């Protein structure tokens, strides 16, 4: 225990998710089951196979039992895992190996690895599910060795969960009421754990390698805002942290109504949506409209574009949720990670730099004309203020092409997404041909850094706090002011409360985000005046790195 003389306890650093601070006792995930060695069995082949079958059956039963406790989609996921444990093709492979003299442990491990490698080889969605097979194999092996099943530790009281990283099967059964905070030693800001924490609003610090030395029962303070875990924190630190969290929560609970800065300057808070369901959620969470309606979701898997009438019917359903409010529709953004058979060229070597977004639509203008016509019809039937924007615009000429076409087909307000650096650099010219500009920070960051946003090995570049990104946003903001063209933000950057303040300081006139982030952003904006936001933006833009920018803004905003 701490002697009480230090002003701070023992600090472990990682990447914080969210802003809250929590204190509680550590509970570790059981150590992962080691891969069994390929040693010849001392038992008869039939006996080994019987052991393997029994452990796989027990694993299936265990998974189903957990599924029944969890219910809902978790039950479905766990039932699918149970089916894998009972799979006849797996059993045949295991028997083949035990017949050849392998132990039950190794036979299960090796058979499952064969199937896993096959899934990994197939890539995409299936490749990502390959980890599920390892999970099933480890459970069966733990059962054979008489050890506890790997997974979330059982506890009756709340705890801070410390793990390497969480697998989907773990998070499916995580009882959120008992988890005070998540700490991982592996995994970065885009890991499964981080995504879960963001979605559910759980305090988390990920990628804290040194958390390896935390033991069950250790008292820790998890400070997501600063990305720190403090072992044996002094009482005054605990009091201060809890007080701060309570204040943040009170501000958040009180905040309602339209987005405003402390001086009353309005910053509309809009939602990013992709379906009728997410539109309803956005309304419930107080969105003032929609800043990004992704229409690809309605087309996924379609061989041909849906008819004008079909499209109009879906658009009408979404628009009806927002009477008198703005709904910005992004026309089809096909290509790269969202290929559509009728728009995307197969076999591009580098689809993120290929004929995607508006480039693909211009090459198939009928699809674009049909979509704009359907949107105009739906807009005429509802009271939503419908606007359209084009994705992947790289030049002023493309902006002009899109606006002319939209106006021709009856949509009065047509803008561009700024996500290609050339569009941001030329924003003063683009602004003359756009009714508004909306910055897509995810793609903009990927293109500024030439770093694939879906590739884990270059994930560290995908940080919108970087001054290289912020400087481009500043240019777009300045062009917007000069030409009196609104500048929105519709990337996940707008969902980071402090970064949202910086974006307003750089000239953003509205912010669009996942609707779950709206309350936090609204609360943070209410703490800063426009002058304050501009001062913070200037600090961020002049920093050397993303970390330095965030640190400078954090220091200046917590001690005004």
């Amino acid at each position: 225990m701490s002697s009480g003389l230090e002003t701070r306890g023992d600090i472990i650093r990682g990447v914080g998710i969210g802003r809250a601070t929590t204190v509680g006792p550590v509970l570790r995930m059981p150590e992962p089951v080691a891969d069994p060695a390929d040693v010849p069995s001392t038992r008869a082949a039939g006996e080994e196979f019987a052991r393997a079958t029994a452990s796989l059956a027990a694993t299936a039963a265990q998974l189903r039992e957990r599924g029944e406790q969890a219910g809902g989609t978790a039950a479905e996921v766990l039932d699918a895992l149970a089916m894998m444990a009972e799979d006849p093709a797996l059993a045949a492979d295991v028997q083949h190996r035990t017949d050849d003299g392998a132990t039950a442990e190794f036979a299960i491990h090796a058979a499952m690895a064969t199937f896993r490698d096959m899934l990994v080889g197939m890539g995409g969605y299936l490749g990502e599910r390959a980890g599920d097979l390892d999970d099933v194999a480890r459970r069966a092996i733990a059962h054979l060795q008489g050890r506890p099943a790997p997974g979330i530790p059982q506890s009756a009281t709340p705890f801070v969960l410390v793990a390497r990283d969480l697998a989907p099967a773990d998070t499916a059964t995580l009882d959120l009421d008992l988890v005070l905070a998540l700490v991982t030693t592996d995994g970065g800001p885009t890991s499964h754990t981080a995504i879960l924490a963001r979605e559910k609003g759980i305090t988390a610090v990920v990628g804290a390698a040194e958390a390896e030395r935390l033991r069950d029962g250790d008292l820790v303070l998890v400070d997501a805002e600063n990305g720190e875990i403090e072992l044996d924190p002094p009482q005054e630190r605990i009091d201060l942290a809890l007080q701060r969290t309570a204040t943040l929560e009170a501000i958040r609970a009180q905040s309602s109504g339209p987005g405003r800065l402390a001086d009353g300057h309005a910053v509309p808070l809009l939602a990013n949506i992709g379906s009728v369901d997410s539109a309803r959620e956005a309304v419930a969470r107080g969105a003032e409209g929609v800043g990004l309606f992704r229409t690809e979701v309605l087309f996924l898997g379609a061989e041909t574009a849906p008819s004008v009438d079909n499209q109009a019917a879906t658009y009408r359903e979404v628009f009806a949720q927002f009477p008198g409010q703005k709904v910005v529709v992004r026309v089809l953004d096909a290509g790269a990670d969202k290929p559509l058979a009728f728009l995307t060229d197969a076999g591009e070597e580098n689809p993120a730099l290929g004929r995607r977004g508006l480039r693909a639509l211009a090459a198939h203008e009928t699809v674009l004309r049909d979509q704009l016509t359907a949107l105009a019809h739906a807009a005429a039937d509802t009271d939503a203020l419908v606007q359209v924007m084009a994705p992947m615009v790289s030049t002023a000429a493309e902006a002009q092409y899109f606006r002319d076409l939209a106006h021709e087909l009856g949509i009065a307000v047509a803008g561009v997404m700024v996500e290609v650096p050339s569009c941001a650099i030329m924003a003063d010219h683009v602004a003359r041909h756009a009714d508004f500009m909306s910055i897509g920070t995810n793609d903009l960051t990927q293109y500024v850094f030439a770093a694939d946003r879906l590739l884990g090995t270059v994930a560290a570049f995908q940080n919108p706090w970087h001054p290289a990104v912020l400087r481009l946003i500043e240019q777009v903001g300045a062009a917007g002011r000069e030409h009196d063209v609104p500048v929105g933000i519709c990337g996940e950057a707008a969902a980071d409360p402090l970064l949202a303040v910086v974006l307003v300081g750089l000239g953003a006139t509205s912010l669009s985000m996942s609707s779950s982030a709206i309350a936090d952003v609204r609360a943070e904006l209410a703490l800063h005046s426009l002058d304050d936001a501009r001062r913070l933006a200037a600090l961020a833009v002049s920093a050397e790195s993303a970390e330095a920018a965030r640190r400078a803004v954090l220091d200046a905003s917590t001690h005004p």
Partner: protein
Amino acid sequence: MAERTLAVASAHGLHARPAALFVKAVTDSGLSVELQKGERKINAASILGVVSLGIEHGDEVTLRVDGEGADAVLESLAGFLEQDHDA
């Protein structure tokens, strides 16, 4: 033996959830069912086998059912594959 060739309707093909539902329907039937895509044939009671075929939306597959009441089982399994389970 009852046999039919058809195009799979699920928007994301026969992955994960639709695959699990399909295999469940196969095991519930109690009959021996074979699924073929291209040259590869697998036991349709194996979720790992079904998933390993990597069936995408619109892919052509052949179902073969053997045993008592094969026609009715084929009818219901084919109906399942011709529905969009991701909608």
